Every structure is written in C-alpha cells, then in structure tokens.
C-alpha cells in the first residue's frame, strides 16, 4: 500500500510486519521515531510483541541478545554514540550467531557532538561481524528490513540496516508498505537454530581458547562469504514476491560504458544519480555504483562492474583520521592495478549537505585530474583559519 | 578418604564397647541392632547401664560442647528393652569341644563365660555363693541394681548353655584343671581390710554388710562408715534404708578427695548421709565409742595427723577401706601382695591354661572393668584353646575434641533419668531412677557427636565444590554410602575441614 509517511514510520511499519517478538528501545536521535512508532503499534495492540524500554543502548542490544537466545525474533535500533555505547554487545551478538535485526539511523560521532548524518558510527563497528546493509531510499529502507530478518535467520548472523539519519529517517516520502500476508509469505516464523530450552539444555557463549578461536573466526568469515550469495538471492526472491527491486549487493547506474564512476553508499545516491544524468546529457561517460551491502563487502561485484573504468571516485561519509576513508581503502584493494585513477572523497560529514553543485564540481575536477588523494568535498578553509591561522599553510602543502 | 577413628567413649570404656556404633543404631530406632552391637562386648547392659560408673561419659567429647551424652541411660534402655522383648543373645558358634572351668560367677567370670560360650566352648562356672552375680549382687545395693534385672540378665547366659554351679567352693585347682582344657579364676576380692584395735560386735566389714542386702536386720541410732570409696557410700546409703537414724561417713582426707563417684556422693548427701572428712578411726570401744583422730590437710593431697581426737557414739561402724584377695588355694599360681594374682596383659597366669581376671588381679576393681577383663580374657583363652598366640587388638587412632567441627552441632542439654522415688531420705530399696522412655533414649542417642565416625550427614557431599563426593548409587560398596571420585577431587580439603565428626583424612597423592 502506497503511503506518504516519514521514513522512520515506514521502517517501524516494515519491522512490525516482520512480527518481531521482542523490541528493545532506547532513545537517540535520529533513530527515535522508529521505536516511538513501534511503541504505538505494540501499545495499541496492533503488534503482539514484548516492548522493553531499557536504560541504555548497551542494555538495548543486550536485551535483544537475551531475547534472541531465548528464541524470540528480536529487534532494536540505534544511532551514533548509542552504537558505540553498545559496541561490545554488537560484537557479542555476532559472535553468538544471534539473528538480531537492528536499524542504525546513521549519524556522526563526537566530539564535537553533532547529531547529524554521516557514516562514522557504522564504520566504527564494521569489523563486528554483522551484515551491514545501506538503504538508498526510504522505500529501500522498508524493503531491506523485511529482507534483513530473513537473511539474519538464514545465516545465523545479525543484520544492521543502515538508514541515513534525518536525510531518510526524517524525510516524509512515498513508500509502498507491503501487506501483512505478503510479508508472512516471504518471511517464515522464526525457528531458532539454538535457544535456551530446558527440554534441550545447551550452553551459549562458552569461552573459546587459542585451540579453537581461529576456527570460530574462520566460520564467522565463512558466514559472511555465504551471505554474499544469500543477499542476492533474498533480493531476487523479494523482487519476485513484491514486484520491485530492492536490496542486493549493489546498485549499478549508468555503468555500461562509464569511464568515470562515483562509488558511494546510502541516501546520497539519489542526488548523485541526478548529476550523473546531467553529465551524461553533457556527453560525459560517468556512472554510479551504490553499495547496498557493506558487510559482506562485495569485492568481486565491484571488480566486475568497475574494472573497465578509468577513474573511480569513492565518496564516503566517514573519515579515519590518520588513514582516510575506510570505504576507499577497501575499494582500492579491489581495484588497484585495474583502474588507473582512484580518488577518495570525504563528504557529508556531520550533516554537511551534498549538493548537485558540489558534485558537478567534483566530476569536473576529476575529469581534469585536479583532485587531492583525499579530497574533502566543500572544505571551508575559512573555518580552518578561524580556528588556527597556521592551518592554511599546512593544507596548502598537501 | 574416610577413616573410622576411635571415639573417646569407646576408648574410655573398660569393656571396649563400640558405644558410638550402637548409639548410631539407636538413634535410627534400630534398637535390636544396637543391642546386638552392645552385647558383642557386654552381656550385662541393664546392669552396667545402672551400676557402671560410666567411664565412657568421662571421655565424651560432648562435655566440652555442652554436657556429656547420657550413654548409660541409653545402654540401660537398650538392656531393659532386650529383657522385655526377650531378645536372645546371638547364637553361639558351633561347639568347639573345648571345656573351660571358671571359678567365680561375678561380672568377670560370667563375662568370660559368655564370650567363651559365644565361641562355642563348653563353659562351667563355679561359685561359692548361693546366687550368681558376685559383686553385682553382693556389692551393689538393689536400689541401684534391682535383683530381678540382674537375675534376668544372668538367666540369658544360662539360656545360652552356660552351666553355673552355685554353692560350690572350688578347693582343688589341679582337679579342676584336669577336668578342663583351661581355667579362669575370678573369685574377686572379698577379704576386708580391718583396723587394728577395732573389733567387736559393733564393727563390721562394709562388704559383708552389703551382702545382707535388705534382708539384714533393722538398724537404729548412728551408723558410721569408714572409707571414701564407692563401697563406703553404698554401705552408708544401705544403712539409711535399713533404719539408721543417722549415717556418717568418716574419711581421712578432705571431702573433695573422696574416691567414690561424685554422683554417688551427691545422692548420699541428698539422702541425708553426713560426711565427716579429715578423720581417721583409731579405735572403737565395745559400746560403740569410735575414736577419731582429726587430720590437717597438707601439700599435694597429703594429710597430717593432728593431736586432736574426738569420739563418736555409734551403733555400728562399717569399715570400707578396701578388700584383699583370699589367698587360700592357689599355691602354684603366683600371687602378689594382698593376694592379687599376677597376670600378663592377656590375663594368663604363670601356669599355662590358667587365666585370671576381675578384682583378683590388679585393676580398678569395678564391675565394668571386671566385665572387660572377661571379654579380653575370653579372646586370649580361645587363642590358647586353639593353640594360637593371643590376638593383638588393633588400636584405632583417637579423635580429639579439636578435630570436631562444632558449627554443625546444636546445643542440646543432657537429659537424666527421672526418679522413681521421692528425693530426701529414702524409705526403701526401691530403685531410685527410672529407665529412659524411648523418647529420651532417642534424644540422648542423637546427642552423640559420632566423634571420628561418619554419621552420614552428607555435608562432605554438599560442600564439595567439584562434585567429587559420590553418594548412593554412584558410591556402591561404600560402608557409609559415600565415596570420593579422585578423578574430580582437587584436594581442597573442604570436606575434611567441614566434616562435623572429623572422619575425613587428607592423604597426599604423592609423597
């Protein structure tokens, strides 16, 4: 059913359609509207679930961990500092192979405190062992949540659906919300692979020593490798069931003959597509590759799609000071030696708008090869000098 | 590992009764089984339960916790129950064909007879008195040991097949020896010591006085008893019962140093017996004027005569300053001063095949010790009859109070036998104390700390952090139903530390 609603509300409705049995809630902007939406559904009796208001994000995911181990389909949502506060539990949930689904309303991490969107939070837990899927639109956010429960339960692996904070979560958009019967047909009842059942006692979360830890980690990686095909398959099934394409490993746009390709993740894709269209109209062979699946990382898919490109720009909303863009690093690993020119673009940090003019300029500079190895989109040098006058020279040098 | 240690009660018992074991059966209400364990050592539980001076209780560790277990009360309960229920002694072993003659049907002689009979030997007991029992009959007044009880316990021996020839004075030891494979002499010590210068109608040996029992003539006036031992007090209390207006015990030392059992002294005082300490009898005139030399207490319990004397008018002076063995016929058997027969630790005299015990040999001269002699002598006799060397009894390690973990025991004051007779001056020879009702016997049996012997409290099983103590089905073959699984034991020692009764021992795995 088509609806014009807030992205968060769409996610809440999608999650509710998946019939989660335990929902853990702790407020943090910009994720808050999702759990608020779910609380209304539970309190009004429209959704039969245990709704637990907890005292911290650490507890939120921990409650989900317990609930999942207790055999219940479990869901929570968080953002930013909250994700870091629960970081220990994030790793734990994956290690325990618990099929929890969590929405991440992506947001910057302080200090300085900043409540706006970027991907710093997601990047901070990229090694935790979760499947991490990025939604480009609110429709995709809705659809990815439905796919996430299926994937998590199939793979015994938690799934984080990353939805850009504010840009998607707070945007009032047109979304097609599936019917309950459709979702029920797509997503079977949760049949836990392991659970705390007195009839069949098992120990979950044992200590593992050096003699087996490598093997356990190997299996965790193996699960992610399996996820690469599972994600595609689930997206295909989804497309057949719901009649629209959503999810999968990547979205390719105008890549057939693209010489210059912009690679990115999340909601910025829409604006990029607009600019790609403009560039194409102007006769320049540009394309766009959007990663849906960040974990597992679709290396083979990226290589297949981009190996013919001459220039690849990796635009990402995160920065590891002292290193650069984490996404760029990974793309570089895949494409080094195949694509002559690879540029790292850091953009949209802390809610900085990524606009068409900026992207146009970016393409133009890329065409002329006029980009620093790590390019900060729309860097305002006046802010830097206001902070410290000596900085200008330092940057000028690089 | 679990180890059974020798509890102090057992250690102190002259008979060597396995008191802890029969108490533990009694507390389970397995009275017959308890009695069976009891009579493995002592065929006279009803008698000793009354007349023994409870050496066991002197040893009882519980005294240091609250009060001793009233062991004798439980023993008496079991003995009386056995009489009431007519439980027979265990069936003796098959006849050995050996014949043993015993001279003296007192506690020692009857005890040896019992134990020998249990071994299948044919036993004949000779006694010069008209009735069997020896000192149990002629030394212990019936208010302490009713005669029907004594008779009943002796009757059980007769039922076992022991022949008792009463009123038969053995005069020819060689003849007796010729008729038997072995002999046991247990004639006791009946020859009273006298006081020089104290003779006459009004002077009588206390033991002889006691022999008359209640059948003796009525007394009047003041009766004095000279001596501080149990016999003296028995005599004094008997005199009261026989009508004496006043009974005075004269003792050469201080009252604190009376050698009689304190309970006996206390009862005597309660009944109205007066004790005049620090007095030595130096003479007694024909009209009953007893001359007393006053003593002054000195160092280390010694007393020194003073020059002061006093006189006491009495109708009767009973002398209870000890007895000696009559040394009439035992030329070949080495005797010591006072007529006592020398024996080795197996009660063998210098003459092969002749053994002796009881008051005849150097000992503490109590019924209990005499019964104990009989038990041990029977072992030696059996060995002798079988041509073996006497058995060496294995001594178990003792268990001191400090090894007990008192945390696990509850304070529970001792209960005593209730009185049959009113307090104060006694009017009859009726037994003073009543046998425990079952409830009290059970209570006292349950007060036993079970020193050094597992009482299956399962504390070890419960406190083992490693589940290394197995119980029940997984501890098959263990006497106490508990077993250590050394594969799981880490040797922390918690079980040994916590064991209430100290029966768990830690042994190093490697030395």
């Amino acid at each position, binding site marked *: 059913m088509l609806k014009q609603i807030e992205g968060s509300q769409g996610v809440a409705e999608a999650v509710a359609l998946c019939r989660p049995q335990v929902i853990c809630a702790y407020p943090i902007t910009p994720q808050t509207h999702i759990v608020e939406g779910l609380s209304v559904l539970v309190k009004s009796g429209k959704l039969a679930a245990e709704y637990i208001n907890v005292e911290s994000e650490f507890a939120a995911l921990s409650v989900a961990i317990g609930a999942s181990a207790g055999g219940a389909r479990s869901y929570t949502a968080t953002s930013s500092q909250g994700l870091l506060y629960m970081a220990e539990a994030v790793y734990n949930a994956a290690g325990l192979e618990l099929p929890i689904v969590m929405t991440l309303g992506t947001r910057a991490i302080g200090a300085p405190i900043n409540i706006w969107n970027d991907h710093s939070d997601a990047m901070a837990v990229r090694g935790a062992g979760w499947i991490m899927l990025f939604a480009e639109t609110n429709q995709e956010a809705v659809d990815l949540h439905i796919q996430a429960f299926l994937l998590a339960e199939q793979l015994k692996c938690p799934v984080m659906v990353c939805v850009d904070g504010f840009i998607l979560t707070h945007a009032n958009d047109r979304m097609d919300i599936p019917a309950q019967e459709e979702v029920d047909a797509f997503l079977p009842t949760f049949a836990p692979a392991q659970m705390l059942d007195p009839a069949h006692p098992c120990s979950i979360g044992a200590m593992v020593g050096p003699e087996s830890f490598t093997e356990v980690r190997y299996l965790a990686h193996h699960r992610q490798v399996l996820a690469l095909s599972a994600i595609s398959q689930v997206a295909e099934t989804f497309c057949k069931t719901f009649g629209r394409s959503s999810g999968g490993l990547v979205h390719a746009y105008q890549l057939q003959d693209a010489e210059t390709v912009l690679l990115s993740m999340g909601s910025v894709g829409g604006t990029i597509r607009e600019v790609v269209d403009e560039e194409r109209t102007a006769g320049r062979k540009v394309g766009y590759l959007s990663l849906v699946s960040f974990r597992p990382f679709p290396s083979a898919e990226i290589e297949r799609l981009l190996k013919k490109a001459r220039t690849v720009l990796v635009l990402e909303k995160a920065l590891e000071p002292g290193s650069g863009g984490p996404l760029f690093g990974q793309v570089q690993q895949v494409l080094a030696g195949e694509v002559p020119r690879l540029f790292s673009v850091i953009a949209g940090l802390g809610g900085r708008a990524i606009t068409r003019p900026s992207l146009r300029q970016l393409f133009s500079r890329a065409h002329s090869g006029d980009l620093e190895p790590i390019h900060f989109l729309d860097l305002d040098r006046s802010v830097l000098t206001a902070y410290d006058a000596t900085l200008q020279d330092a940057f000028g040098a690089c | 590992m679990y180890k059974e240690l020798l509890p102090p009660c057992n250690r102190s018992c002259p008979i060597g009764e396995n008191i802890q074991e029969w108490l533990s059966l009694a507390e389970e209400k397995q009275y017959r089984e308890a009695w069976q364990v009891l009579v493995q050592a002592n065929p006279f539980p009803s008698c000793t339960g009354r007349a023994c001076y409870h050496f066991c209780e002197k040893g009882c560790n519980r005294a240091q916790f609250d009060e001793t277990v009233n062991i004798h009360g439980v023993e008496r309960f079991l003995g009386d129950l056995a009489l009431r229920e007519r439980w027979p002694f265990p069936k003796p072993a098959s006849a050995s064909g050996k014949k043993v003659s015993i001279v003296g049907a007192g506690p020692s002689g009857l005890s040896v007879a019992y134990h020998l009979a249990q071994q299948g030997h044919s036993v004949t007991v000779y006694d010069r008195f008209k009735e069997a029992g020896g000192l149990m009959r002629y030394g212990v007044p019936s208010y302490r040991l009713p005669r029907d009880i004594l008779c009943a316990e002796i009757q059980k021996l007769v039922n076992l097949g022991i022949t008792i020839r009463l009123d038969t004075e053995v005069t020819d030891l060689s003849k007796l020896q010729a008729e038997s494979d072995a002999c046991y002499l247990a004639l006791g010590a009946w020859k009273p010591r006298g006081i020089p210068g104290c003779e006459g109608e009004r002077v009588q040996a206390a033991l002889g006085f006691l022999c008359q029992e209640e059948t003796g003539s009525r007394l009047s006036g003041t009766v004095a008893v000279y001596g501080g031992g149990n016999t003296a007090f028995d005599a004094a209390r008997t005199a009261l019962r026989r009508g004496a207006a006043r009974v005075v015990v004269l003792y050469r030392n201080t009252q604190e140093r009376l050698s009689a059992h304190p309970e006996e002294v206390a009862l005597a005082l309660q009944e109205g017996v007066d004790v005049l300490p620090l007095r030595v009898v130096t003479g007694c005139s024909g009209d009953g004027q007893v001359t007393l030399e006053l003593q002054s207490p000195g160092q280390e319990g010694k007393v020194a005569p003073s020059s002061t004397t006093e006189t006491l008018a009495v109708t009767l002076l009973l002398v209870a300053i000890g007895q000696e063995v009559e040394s009439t016929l035992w030329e070949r058997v080495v005797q010591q001063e006072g007529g006592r027969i020398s024996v080795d630790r197996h009660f063998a005299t210098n003459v092969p095949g002749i053994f002796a015990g009881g008051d005849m040999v150097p000992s503490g001269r109590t019924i209990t010790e005499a019964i104990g002699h009989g038990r041990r002598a029977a072992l030696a006799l059996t060995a002798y009859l079988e041509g073996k060397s006497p058995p060496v009894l294995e001594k178990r390690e003792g268990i001191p109070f400090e090894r007990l973990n008192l945390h696990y025991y509850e304070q529970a004051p001792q209960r005593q036998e209730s009185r049959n007779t009113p307090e104060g001056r006694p009017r009859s020879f009726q037994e003073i104390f009543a046998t425990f009702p079952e409830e009290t016997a059970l209570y006292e049996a349950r007060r036993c700390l079970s020193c050094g012997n597992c009482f299956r409290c399962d504390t070890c099983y419960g406190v083992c*952090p490693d589940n290394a103590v197995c119980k029940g089905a997984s501890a098959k073959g263990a006497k106490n139903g508990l077993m250590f699984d050394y594969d799981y034991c880490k040797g922390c020692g918690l079980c040994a*530390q916590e064991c209430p009764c100290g029966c768990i021992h830690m042994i190093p795995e490697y030395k």
Partner: protein
Amino acid sequence: MQKDFYPKGTKTLGNRLAPSLGTLQAQEDRPNCLTGGHRACQGCGEALGARYVIDAAWKATQGRLAVVTGTGCLEVFSSLYPESAWQTPWMHSLFGNTAAVATGVAAAMRARGTSEVRVLAQGGDGSTTDIGFGCLSGLFERGDDVLYVCYDNEAYMNTGVQRSSATPPTARTATTPPVGSAPGNPFGTGKNVPKLALAHGISYVATASIAFVHDLEQKVSRAMSFHGARYLHVHVPCPLGWGTNPRDTLVHARNAVYCGLFPLFEGENGVVTHSFKLEKTIPVAEYLRGQRRFAHLFAKSGPDTERLQALQAMADAYIAEFNLV
C-alpha cells in the same frame, strides 16, 4: 522433646534420620546444574554458591529454568569450549550486561508463551556492583521476571584480584596494595547493593552465605515464589584472592556472618522483613586474621588498632541495623 529435633542433623547439610529436613545439596538426586569437572580453583566458594543457588532454583521451577551468566571466574571455569559444566540452558554474553540479557530471555519466554520457564541471572561482585550495575538497576526498575544472583567474593578475582566496589576497606588487592598511609582499600561509604536493590522496591531481596546452606536454599525457593525482579547476594570466599587455605572457605564464610560484616537478611517490597539471628558473634579481628589480604592489619610490630576498630564499628553498625542478635 520437640519433634524434628536432631542435635547433629539440623545444621549438617543432610539428615539421615529425616532426609526431608536436609538440604537439597545433601540429596543424591540433586540436579547438579553446575556439575563436576569444571576448572575452578581448589576450595572455590563461587562454584559452591552457584551450584547451591541454581540447584535450588531448578528445584523450585521443576527444571524450567534458564541461566544467564556474566563474564567472570564462574563463566570461565565452567564453560571452556568444547566442554560445559552446565546442565541447564545457560548463556554468557558480556561482563556488564547480564541483567539486560536476562531481561531479554524473560521477554522471549513471555513472547513465546513459555513464561513458566524462569530466568536466573548471575554474576560476580565486579559484574554486579560495578560494570553491570546500570543494567541491574534497569532490570529492577522494570521489574522483569528475573532472579539476579550476585556471588560476592569482594574483588575482581578473574583478572587477578583487583578492587571492586564490594571490596571491604583495608583489604589488600592488586590495585589497593597494603602500603602508604592508608594501606589496602581505602575506607569509603561503601556500595551495599542489597540495600540498593531494596531501595528499588523489588519484590524480594536477600543476602545469603554458602556457609548457611539451609538458609540459602530457603531464600532461593522463596525468591522463586515471587515474580518480577528479585535479587540475591551470596557471600562466596575466594581462597586465591583472600589468601586463605582452600579448606577454610566455609570457615571464613561463617566467620564473616558471625562477626557481623556480612549480615544475612531478607526484604520484600523495599522493607527488611527478616534477619538471620546470630547464635554467637565473634570479633571482626577473628574473621580477618587468617586472610592474607588483611595480614597488614596484624603486623608483627603490632595490630593496626585504628583500622581494626573502624572495621569493628562497621560490623557493629550492621548488627544494630539488621538487629542480628
């Protein structure tokens, strides 16, 4: 005679004369939820405490029990892959989230319609009074149907004996060495989690000791008779961390109670309802002596009377507060 009076059977764990009066731990068919073969140290108080508590809870729930354990000795020694000493459904997640995980398990049981399966969470004092206290308070406040059990050995033992907020004043730990002008753990206001639990107004709070198994088992079964959040704080000496002889674990546990420093009490809905009367009291010094962590209080040069008096005052205050004698 009182019926059922067994001078040597009422305090022992078992009573062969009246088996029903003995503890569950004396029964041959006790569940052994924490079974043997685990890797605890010699004389481990926590291993005992855990078996006592879980077995009793297992009995109270007739085996319909799920257990959540925080990181710590108990978890490490009982569950080294591929073995597990747990015979109940058991899980371990993290150090500080045990209460929250238990909330989740309880929620799952409700959601699945199997709420007769009760949840027990357990952790050490570090896990409970320090790092996991936020989650614990959350559990209390929400009133989820969980019995949370803290095994208090008064320091972080798993990591090598560091101070926790349950470490008593003056105690030597690896992070409170017995040197300087205030040797050992400094005196503070303390953090009495049982009282904090009581302040949350939850249905049932109790303290217990492994030295008093009847009392402990009775408290566990009482706890299981309530629903909602409940808290049980069990004192479990640690031979390694306390510097005590492994065989004396229960001796020290008893002495802690008898000296008053570890009062045993029960409370319901925010109010203390019952305290374990002490049949005897002992001076605090008697409890502390024999533990190497307090050895500096009993130096050869003379006892540290000032600190001993302060500790005695703590004990006296507990005795008065909980009306222990």
